[in-house]
């Protein structure tokens, strides 16, 4: 026993068992439930239900749309902010970055309710506008931080070199700064897109239950005991997340290669 324990590699065994039970097995169960009909046999019934039921499919497409819009707005607002931050004196930039991250420490539901309060306060209607504002409000720091990180680590002599070689400020940005910040953009986009596509409670609160996102559909099905259908919908979401991750990895690699060429 003592000998077994003194080999350090054996110390990974409890965690391997833990991972098998609490990470791998649950995901296998999602897969099993998704391809099972209510009676227990193997079937594609849940997926054909998804395709034939316009409501769930429409919610799915709508959610992807909302996530894309949120991501684009966050990028449009976040990139300039990250760029400005990267140009500040480091000590000052650190404080301002901290200010951007600080709200993330407050519970996401409290923050969402705060947004609802703001809309009430300004007597603005809750709805699609509130939903997108709330999403951007919740996830904007996730966009700013990775881009700032990349920009801040960028070698300033590259910009100087481009300037010395006669590039205008716009050309410097287009051909040097922007391509080099690609890895930050990719991880920012992923860090905003993935949580927006999978949220459920936030949308309910921001729209007074008027707009349903895909996450809400999944939650409702699970809560109503439709585990098989809910599992199938979860699997569809997992596939989207998987594709996004692969795409992100690919473009991060490409960007790294491009950077190498420079």
């Amino acid at each position, binding site marked *: 026993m003592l000998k077994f324990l003194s080999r350090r590699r054996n110390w990974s065994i409890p*965690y391997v068992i833990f991972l098998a039970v*609490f990470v791998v097995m649950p995901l296998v169960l999602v897969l099993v*439930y998704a391809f099972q009909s209510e009676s227990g046999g193997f079937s594609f019934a849940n997926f054909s239900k998804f395709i034939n039921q316009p409501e769930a499919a429409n919610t799915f497409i709508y959610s992807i749309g909302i996530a894309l819009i949120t991501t684009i707005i966050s990028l449009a607002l976040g990139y*300039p902010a990250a760029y400005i931050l990267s140009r500040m004196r480091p000590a000052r930039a650190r404080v301002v970055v901290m200010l951007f991250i600080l*709200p993330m*420490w*407050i519970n996401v539901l409290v923050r969402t309710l705060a947004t609802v*309060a*703001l809309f009430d306060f300004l007597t603005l209607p809750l709805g699609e506008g509130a939903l997108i504002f709330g999403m951007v*409000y919740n996830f904007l720091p996730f966009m700013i931080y990775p881009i700032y990180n990349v920009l801040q680590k960028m070698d300033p002599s590259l910009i100087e070199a481009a300037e010395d070689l006669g590039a205008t400020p716009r050309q410097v940005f287009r051909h040097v700064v922007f391509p080099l910040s690609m890895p930050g953009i990719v991880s920012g986009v992923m860090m905003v897109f993935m949580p927006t596509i999978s949220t459920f409670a936030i949308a309910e609160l921001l729209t007074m239950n008027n707009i349903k996102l895909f996450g809400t559909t999944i939650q409702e099905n699970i809560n109503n005991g439709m585990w098989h259908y809910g599992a199938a919908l979860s699997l569809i979401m997992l596939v989207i997340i998987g594709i996004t991750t692969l795409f992100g990895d690919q473009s991060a690699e490409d960007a790294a290669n491009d950077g190498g060429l420079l």
Partner: protein
Amino acid sequence: MEDCYNMKKLLSTSYLLVLLVMLYAPIVIIAIFSFTESKVLGNWTGFSTELYASLFSGGVRYSLLDAIKNTFIIAFIAATVSTLLGTVAAIGINDLRYGKRKAINFVNNIPILNPDIITGISLFLLFVSMGITQGYTTVILAHIAFCTPYVVLSVMPRLTQMNPNIYEAALDLGATPFQALRRVIIPEIRPGMISGFILAFTLSIDDFAVTIFTNGTDGLQTLSTYIYADARKGGLTPELRALSTIILVVVLILLIVVNYRSHRQARRAEQQQAALKPKNSLRR
């Protein structure tokens, strides 16, 4: 030219300011209205600290205090167990051969990349298919499941950076493997363990999606699920405004302290380096 530069600077500063105002407006509103008693947010009925008083004196609905208590108990247990499990695991994984290490690291990353709704549903399916009644135990198990990977990730770099010869030297000098662990390895990786614990604790406190799928039907509530149920009923318990304000202030102070300390440390390190290498400063 000078004017143009100043103009640009002014524009960029005000842009950041606008974003920050947008980001903080909702929070500020909550903080302001935590000092009035009105039931509905946005309705000022005169200054009062009643909400704070009722939060601490138990005048608030019993269930909110219960939810706060549950949140901290679950977070403490989950963070402690994850730190122990994750540290032991990291030491073991670090000693494995490349292929196995890579495989475990891959699985370790799954809960980190997975959206929390999927983690929640998959664990829900695990518990129901095993016939386990959901409640305290399942919530804690679920929290351990999504926190431990972060602990492994924060301890691992410390281990890989460590000189393996130190451990061997301790053994050669007659230490038992356990003494070597306690006296050599643990002190080296302690910072990673501490940041892993803090990360696990905050992740657990902040979690909503995993908890809501694993808390069962017995009415176990954490702060997140309480707020959710409360908001769905229509109104937000007014005391939550006071509570959110307190959380914000505590976090703000903590961040300022941590930031100030690391800033001072960085400055000191810079000064030491400058003293060691005077030539470097000449080049600048």
